[in-house]
């Protein structure tokens, strides 16, 4: 079957999709977007986290056919148009939150969603928001540090903008 959707702002079409395929497979194997990862394919690790019509979801649990007409954002769509890193991406690098990096795309998507919703999350709220994303390398400490760093920088930017206004 054919699936039409919008990915990172661009209309895309996948052909010859087997009806049992997940959106994750279509993104990775048919649309050349392997940023969403395939760690468990059972919704238990969050490595394939994307936005589907704005919602944070595991792409492995979305049937490709269900995504017909949907708006999808993947980690490939986080950076600015001019390839400048998004603040959450920069913060993950600076805080040392990237080791093997297989969990990183999913965590970036979850962090991006969290900070959009709650610019000053308490630690317990960060933990709850990221509890669907497994990491096996870092022990999560540096990831918490990255989220705090991104939030602090955003707050500093807002303060600077207000000061300058």
């Amino acid at each position, binding site marked *: 079957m054919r699936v039409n959707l919008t990915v990172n702002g661009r209309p895309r079409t996948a052909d010859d999709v*087997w009806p*049992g395929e997940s959106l994750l497979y279509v993104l*990775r*194997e048919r649309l*050349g*977007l*392997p*940023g*969403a*990862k*395939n*760690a*468990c*394919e*059972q919704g*238990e*690790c969050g*490595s394939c986290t994307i936005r589907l019509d704005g919602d944070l979801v595991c792409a492995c649990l979305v049937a490709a056919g269900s995504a017909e007409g949907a708006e999808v954002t*993947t*980690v*490939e769509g*986080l*950076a600015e148009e001019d390839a400048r*890193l998004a603040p959450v*991406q920069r913060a*993950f*690098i*600076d805080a*040392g939150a*990237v*080791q*093997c*990096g*297989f*969990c*990183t*795309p999913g965590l*970036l998507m979850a962090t991006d969603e969290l900070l959009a919703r709650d610019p000053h999350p308490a630690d*317990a709220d*960060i*933990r*709850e928001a*990221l*509890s*669907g*994303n*497994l*990491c*096996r*390398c*870092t*022990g*999560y*400490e*540096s*990831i*918490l540090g990255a989220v705090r760093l991104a939030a602090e920088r955003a707050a500093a930017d807002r303060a600077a903008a207000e000061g300058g206004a």
Partner: protein
Amino acid sequence: MGITPAPDALRQDTAAPGGVGASAERPDAVGKVTGAFAYSSDLWHEDMLWGHTLRSPHPHARITGLDVSAALAVPGVHAVLTHEDLPAATHYGLEFTDQPVLARDIVRHEGEPVALVAADHPETARRAADRIRVSWQELPAVLDEASATARDAPVLHPGRTDHHAAHVPHPNIVHRQPVVRGDVARAAAGADVIVSGAYEVGMQDQAFLGPESGLAVPAEDGGIDLHIATQWLHVDHRQLAPVLGLPPERVRLTLAGVGGAFGAREDLSMQAHACLLALRTGRPVKMVYNRYESFFGHVHRHPARLTYEHGATRDGKLTHVKARIVLDGGAYASSSPAVVGNAASLGLGPYEVPHSDVEAIALYTNNPPCGAMRGFGAVQACFAYEAQMDKLAAALGMDPVELRQRNTMSQGSTMPTGQVVDAPAPVAELLRLVRARPLPPARQWETPDGTDVRALPGGLSNTTHGEGVVRGVGYAVGIKNVGFSEGFDDYSTARVRLEVTGGEPVATVHTAMAEVGQGGVTVHAQIARTELGVTRVALLPADTRVGSAGSTSASRQTYMTGGAVKNTCEAVRAEVLRLGRERGLLDTRAERLAGGKVVGRDGEVLAALADILGGEAIDLELEFRHRPTQPFDRVTGQGAGHVQYSFCAHRAVVEVDTELGLVKVVELAAAQDVGKAVNPQAVVGQIHGGAVQGLGLAVLEEIVVGDDGRVRNPSFTDYLIPTVLDTPDMPVDVLELADEHAPYGLRGVGEAPTLSATPAIVAAIRRATGRALHRVPVRPEHLTAPDGSRAG
């Protein structure tokens, strides 16, 4: 976190930004946060086919018939391979060549590969595999020591020819290593207190997130190019070429992005299978395991049964230790012999023990094969000997940290193997550091807004609002060897090229080191900057065009391939200076390279690199070795078997819901000596990550194998690794006491924190509950059973 400064004499020049000692940024970081970094499962090739593996449903069975014709008839299927189709060698293995590429007549564990399919879509391949008809005759399985070593036990590998075959007491014992020192019987007679215990460690999985995967591309020369996630390209290569029946130079491996390893990528998984399918079909073949298959696709941490006897005088000095460690190696040897060597030689912990008698064995059984996992034989022993130290302290009425500190080893101590420790061993200091930290505040779930269940055992599942919750604090310390031991010729190779391009000096570093997430590539760039005084460092992809870098395991890569990069850089620098003198541009004041210049002792500029090199490049490839080690004596275990020791201590604070048996780890404080923090941020990341894998073993993680030899929980739904809501705050103290034998004085970091985290957490749970707890992972049942002291 605190980093204790090193003495000035040991400070290296870190003038070059991003050099040794800086928390330099990972060279792969931008690719990893944008999705551009290509992991082995991300690879794609025009015209590629998908490989799929048919596996045994039985733990021990004879194949009496195998018919692939129906599978071959499925449209879209390009090849189906069985043992009959193997072109050359039929077996491989890390230490023994005992593992079939595809099962011939016997399968020895559930999940053993039997046949392969290549098809145009994964679903086509799966449906075709369903149509392969296998006739099975189930055989009696051996699943533990008693059944494996019974007189009439089925011998799993008859006619063994490996190097341990001659000295093992039973053919189902892979390897046996005793370590005997002094006179235990006499020492026991002089002990005031003797405690003994039996302990058990469940089968842990590495649970890396990036599943086994790779892409094999047939080459025009009849050879193969394999893009693969592995821990050691050259050991894969050594096993692959004979199986493919190709000359070594026509088998080329390139490292693809690796999504974690932790020991699970030391053995081959799909490497040979993808190559065989690619060579048969003439098409690129991609193979990607799903999580279910991954649990059958790699070895696990050996489950272990351990019995210990510790004796001490009334004032708390150890008199002797007796230990027996039985490791279940499963169906194939993998790295079991080396795991046995570690368990035996490190089995008493970082303590001075005047008289000891240790025996460690690994079994062949029909359980899943076990091999390398972070901590490698030292993890199991650490759980047991640290439990014993607490038990001994209780018997003596002594504080458990105080008892440990009275017995800790230090520089100059003699190991049970007779090896004298000739580098700093600040074990007592590490214990002091974790104990000196303030304890986290009590009852953190009580907030101005009411009860925050997220701070309680059970978390969001809302099982307690404080009822039944008791806090406990526990301590543990461990010892891990760094590098390959027992006389192994352990070396790493680095090729370094220095040239001036566009007026700027550039170093190019090429090694075959597997970057699995640890940050070795960052360290290589840092070393090149420091040694060659350059800003720009190019890192070439790891592949088999350069010499072996050895394995990314045994906490060895910063020491070994880092050491190799340093070593080659030094040779390149010497060549620059030689050239400079030869060309009359330098005199004897020339010492080092900095900022693209040759400088003297006080940094005075003597010549520009561009003037010395002109358009030439210096390009060297050299091997680097650590000090040689000795094999352990087969009878006494004596021998200087290890290169370097690594130590970490933990203090765990837990809160236990004593009625439901649920545990929350509130804080896990670590102190570790790293010799030299080449990249402090990466060092702390290793300590955190290693500790959380130890936390997983303490309270969550176990591959449950039924008494029928079948795995009960091969999925992330039932094999639970810690989430961010399960991990505590983890303050870290880092000591930097240089080991003068190692590059920059550094000490391997990655594994030691995995050892001590587990026993520290279990000690804390014992304090909270009063239960004996002889087994990990600790389950709610163990904390609530009416007769909990004997649970597990």
